[in-house]
């Protein structure tokens, strides 16, 4: 695919923004720490107070990395969904992927009681959360996709996605009704979405999943571009539609599933970031869009997290609320300004 211009400068600006928002994110928090102390904390050096070293290295840094992984990963999965379904409103949240993931997690956390205490504790390790959540989103995506072979109208498909979301939400309600207060609280806190609860080990698992999902996405760049013309044209240019669809589904459910497992369901990033990126990168070429969306998603999530932690106060707002508060107006603004969302 030929693009008119090189987007090198755009990418340099984005990367600079990423560094700035990253530093901003780690230097702001409930405890006020001087900037140079933060820097030395990042690199594991000595800080004036040993607690600062702990706060920066064991709390703020993992949180910032989670924000980068979650923001970038969700934004890329949104882009993949929009191209696969050829619908500008597609995204991991709208199509019920996140609800699927939450269903998986609900079964795990709320259903843990059924298996008894000891076994339940074992089940709740980071890995099982990831597997349950990825499995949940994968199943919902498969369901949506199998319907999409029958229903060609993408609007109908989105409504069906929303219905799947309702059904999973209903099942979660039923599960909640039968579970005890402690489990319920654990699940509710997970569903608020938080970037701060991920340990370095968790980040390792999360980044493995995200990197693998991204690899699958990058392998699909060429078929993704072909899909912009529609399935029939893509086929006529020698693209293996079945394989491509499988790769894209695997990539999205890995990305959305693992991120939702660690950070909870996070709305609007997947839907809004690809559209925002297209305002700046006026190309449809996924070779440019994919990395651009990845970096933009990371930046947006770092900003949202910085706002969510309400600097210099002891309160932290649920990240899900902030992304919705920022994301929904952005989508409305785009719709009003362009009258039509293009992808």
């Amino acid at each position, binding site marked *: *695919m*030929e*693009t*008119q211009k090189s987007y090198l400068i755009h990418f340099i600006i984005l990367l600079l923004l990423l560094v700035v928002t990253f530093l901003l994110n780690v230097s702001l928090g409930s405890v006020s720490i001087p900037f140079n102390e933060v820097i030395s904390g990042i690199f594991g050096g000595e800080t004036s107070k040993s607690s600062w070293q702990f706060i920066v290295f064991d709390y703020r840094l993992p949180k910032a990395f989670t924000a980068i992984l979650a923001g970038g990963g969700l934004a890329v999965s949104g882009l993949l969904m929009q*191209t696969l379904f*050829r619908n500008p409103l597609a995204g991991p949240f709208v199509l019920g992927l996140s609800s699927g993931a939450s269903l998986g997690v609900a079964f795990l956390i709320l259903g843990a009681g059924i298996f008894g205490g000891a076994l339940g504790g074992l089940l709740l390790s980071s890995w099982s959360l990831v597997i349950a959540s990825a499995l949940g989103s994968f199943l919902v995506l498969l369901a949506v996709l199998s319907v999409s072979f029958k229903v060609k109208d993408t609007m109908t498909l989105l409504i069906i996605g929303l219905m799947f979301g309702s059904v999973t939400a209903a099942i979660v309600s039923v599960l909640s009704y039968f579970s005890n207060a402690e489990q319920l609280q654990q699940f509710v806190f997970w569903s608020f979405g938080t970037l701060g609860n991920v340990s370095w080990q968790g980040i390792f698992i999360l980044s493995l999943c995200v990197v693998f999902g991204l690899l699958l996405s990058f*392998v699909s*760049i*060429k078929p993704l*571009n*072909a*899909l*912009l*013309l*529609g399935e*029939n*044209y893509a*086929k*006529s*240019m*020698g*693209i*293996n539609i079945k394989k491509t669809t499988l790769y894209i589904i695997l990539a999205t459910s890995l990305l959305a599933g693992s991120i939702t497992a660690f950070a909870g369901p996070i709305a609007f990033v997947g839907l809004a970031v690809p559209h925002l990126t*297209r305002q700046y990168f006026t*190309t*449809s*070429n996924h*070779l440019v869009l994919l990395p651009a969306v990845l970096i933009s998603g990371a930046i947006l999530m770092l900003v949202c997290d910085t706002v969510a932690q309400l600097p210099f106060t002891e309160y932290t707002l649920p990240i899900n609320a902030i992304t919705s508060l920022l994301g929904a107006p952005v989508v409305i603004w785009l719709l009003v300004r362009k009258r039509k969302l*293009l*992808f």
Partner: protein
Amino acid sequence: MVIGSEKKITILMTSENKHSVLEISELAIGYISKKKTTIVSEGINFSINKGELVGLVGTNGIGKSTLLRTLAGMQSALKGAITINDTPLNQYSSLQLANKLSIVLTEAPASSNLSVLELISLGRQPYTNWVGKLSETDKEIIQKALKATETESLANQKCYELSDGQLQRVMIARALAQDTQLILLDEPTTHLDLYHRAYILKLLKRLAIESGKTILFSTHEIDLAIQLSDKMLVMTSEKTHYNSPENLIRQGCFETLFPKETIHFDPEMKRFVLKN
């Protein structure tokens, strides 16, 4: 006398470089579902040579699109043989077929945010590497496609900014960029005004003569197709006729196309006229 000698020359010419690009024998087309098989049309026989422009006409729902979709390998034939360049269609992998055959469909590109240049360069996909990087040769072929369809000035525009006529030219340019011997077009003149309909068909004619492309297009522009096509496929509910427009007129083929109460074919004027 004059007509006779002209015919002799054409026969000589075709026999000289006769190379059949697309050959169809006893083809039956239609749909297979779990419950039943629906035959849309059967007993289709024809063979198109290199550099020929062939118009496919017939009433709505007679199976023109089904035939084109079957020839493009988008749905399977119920019966009979399709041979492209002496090789049966089902022996090609989808990538090999993409080197032989390109299509222009009635559907608009799924993403209207594509720029014209991006869209046309997608035609190079069968030849590019895994990320679709364009070589100098690829870029040259894209420029040639832009030039042939007179879309150079549109190159940086987005698809949603184009008129129907412009978009159709761009879709043809994409098929040209795919650089295939055979091009199939499904109703390339729909939604266009008279000028653009004539423009598109003349463009196809020029491509067949100058670039030696073999082109099969379906259309409702029977009058224009008669004037431009080398051969024509006329699909009726009884039979599919294949011949040169002159012979088809002589055989009275077009008269059977529509019910005679409203319009009838005038063989002298080579076009349909309203019945008073």
